[in-house]
């Protein structure tokens, strides 16, 4: 092994091919099932299907930003600005519709276009000026938190706007009172994002480019892949996802809080890593991210069912899981090297 840094990934490893690459995600899924069964065994009513459905209601915005984050991390970058962009989008929705009186659909399109444009800009800064992603997206973290506070430093309600009722309109599956469950439209939006992301990552040129750039930017460049377009593209995807997550949050709460989603970027990064994506880029799955978000949601659900535990336990457990998964990735990478050499 030439170096002990993950930044320069070992040149030979089976973590990225063969069956070994499914070990982290299998562990996540196993953990998820264990958490669920543990909940069913310990708490009455935990086997209600609505418990699982609720994971996708409460965590729909987190799921969307985590999907965007998956693109960025797969390409070897990081996006710290998603929490702030998300809060800004919610606030912008509220301001555009309540204060400026713009029709809600137009406002949504504006917000989404703005999020994407911001991603393009920051991606261009990262690529063309060779600024570290960490620093470049830090600008977004501060800038959008500041702009959100400047629009309003108190809650803005969007209850008056008819349009925002749409998100929580729900579809019933079976009899809700008896073994059925319901999902609101905003969960379906999150599912659609996941499916589109899955197809884009695995079956399009752009998606393969993301993996290639994350694996080795130099090699991707030498292979003639459009590195510039790919690197800028992933930040645009992340910006779009953050704006969309902000809109989903607007649907879910019908109000905009200037201090909402502080630290959401950390939750998203943690979910992505627990979902089996390497933070150094080049390897991972968008469906793993879904599992990671579900683990986060399941932990919170268990804490809610327990009743006497504080929500910060979720953060502690998340940290421990992160540790376990990072060490697992190290062990797999090292054993892969041993077998080959």
């Amino acid at each position, binding site marked *: 092994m*030439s*170096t*002990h*840094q*993950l*930044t320069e990934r070992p040149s030979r490893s089976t973590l990225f091919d063969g069956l070994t690459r499914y070990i982290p995600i299998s562990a996540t899924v196993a953990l998820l099932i264990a958490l669920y069964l543990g909940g069913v065994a310990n708490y009455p009513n935990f086997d209600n299907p609505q418990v699982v459905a609720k994971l996708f209601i409460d965590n729909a915005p987190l799921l969307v930003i985590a999907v965007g984050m998956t693109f960025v991390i797969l390409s070897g970058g*990081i996006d710290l600005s998603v929490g702030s962009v998300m809060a800004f989008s919610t606030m912008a929705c509220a301001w555009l519709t309540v204060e400026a009186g713009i029709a809600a659909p137009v406002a949504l399109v504006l917000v989404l276009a703005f999020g994407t444009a911001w991603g393009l800009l920051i991606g261009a*800064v990262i690529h*063309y*000026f*060779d*600024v*570290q992603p*960490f*620093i*470049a997206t*830090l*600008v*977004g*973290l*501060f*800038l959008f*938190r*500041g*702009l959100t*506070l*400047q629009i309003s*430093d108190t809650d803005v309600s969007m209850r008056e706007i008819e349009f925002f009722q749409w998100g929580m309109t729900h579809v019933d599956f079976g009899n809700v009172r008896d073994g059925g469950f319901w999902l609101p439209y905003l969960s379906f939006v999150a599912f659609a994002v996941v499916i589109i992301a899955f197809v884009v990552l695995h079956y399009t040129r752009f998606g393969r480019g993301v993996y290639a750039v994350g694996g080795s930017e130099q090699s991707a460049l030498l292979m003639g892949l459009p590195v510039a377009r790919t690197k800028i593209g992933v930040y645009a995807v992340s910006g779009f996802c953050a704006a969309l997550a902000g809109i989903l949050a607007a649907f879910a709460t019908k109000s905009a809080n200037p201090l909402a989603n*502080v630290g959401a970027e*950390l939750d998203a*990064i*943690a979910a992505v*890593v627990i979902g089996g994506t390497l*933070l*150094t880029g080049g390897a991972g799955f968008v469906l793993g991210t879904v599992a990671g978000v579900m683990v986060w949601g399941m932990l919170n659900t268990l804490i809610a069912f327990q009743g006497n535990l*504080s929500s*910060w*336990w*979720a*953060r*502690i457990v*998340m*940290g*421990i899981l*992160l*540790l376990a998964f*990072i*060490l697992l990735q*190290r062990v797999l990478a090292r054993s892969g090297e041993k077998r080959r050499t």
Partner: protein
Amino acid sequence: MNTYAKRLMWPVIILVALIVVNIAATGIDFIIPTVNDGRLGGAFVNILRRSAPLLLIALGMTLVIATKGIDLSVGAVYAIGAAIACQMIIEAPDQTALGLVFGAVALALVVTAVIGAWNGVMVAYFGVQPIVATLILMIAGRGIAQLITGGQIPKVQDASPFTELGRGSFLAVPLPIWIAALMLIAIALLTRKTALGMLLESVGGNPEASRLAGIRSKGITVLVYLVCSLCAGLAGLIGAANLGSADANNGGLWIELDAILAVVIGGTALLGGRFFLLGTAIGVMIIGTLDDTIINVGLSSQWQFTAKAIVVFVVALLQSPEFRGWILKPFKRQPDAPAPEPAPAEEVLAK
């Protein structure tokens, strides 16, 4: 010394500009320290006093960044250090006992040092990327601090000597400024008067080559993270002593980002290698002054984040060679003729 002066030029110019703006807005009193009740006061001294925790953390961060690492956990460690000391003091029957305060401070520092060593071991021995290794504690650390305080905000009595750490003064100079200045001098002496500084830059430049050259790079990496965490714990103690309480959720929130920002403003590249402790100190002063400037020129405090974002953006772009090349292109006369201008400019700087 020439490269050092050149690196420091921009931060010093920015700091002077900020101070001039403040003097223009509030008068010369801004910079002149006043003496109240035998201790220094005044706007600028207060900025320095409030910036002391950030300076401590930024100094540790400079060392970590010099080894090509980064420590995201300092904000959480700040909260843990504050929580341990405050909780231990409020649980004691007599909060004014001097021994108790020393015990609490020592315990907090030992625990934060252990946390730092853990980060260092993860990076050096397990080979985990620094950003990932410290992310774990960044996520879990505030939860641990909550665990220590039991979800409450422990409030230390004003009579306890512990609060002196943040509010007291020695020879008229506030104690936080003393502590931060002593730490700056200690680290500067340790790294510039011994071989340690060169070893650090060597490890940051190329860990593998350093190891082959006979440098125990793993031990140095662990030491650096330990010092950084210790600085963060000390900063947490000062912050908590100043407030008289430890808020596990909001104490030191985003201080890691401010610290990284200060290091970058000070001219230390995130890529490791050369580091500039004095530059970091100036960077911290710029960040501290920036907050006051916004209020003094009549903008609302909500502008703080926006202003900080603009500073990060400008600094990041100025440090990018690609950006400088792009922005300076119109000023270069002919692309094919080798420009003779840079040479005289060098001489002017040298003078």
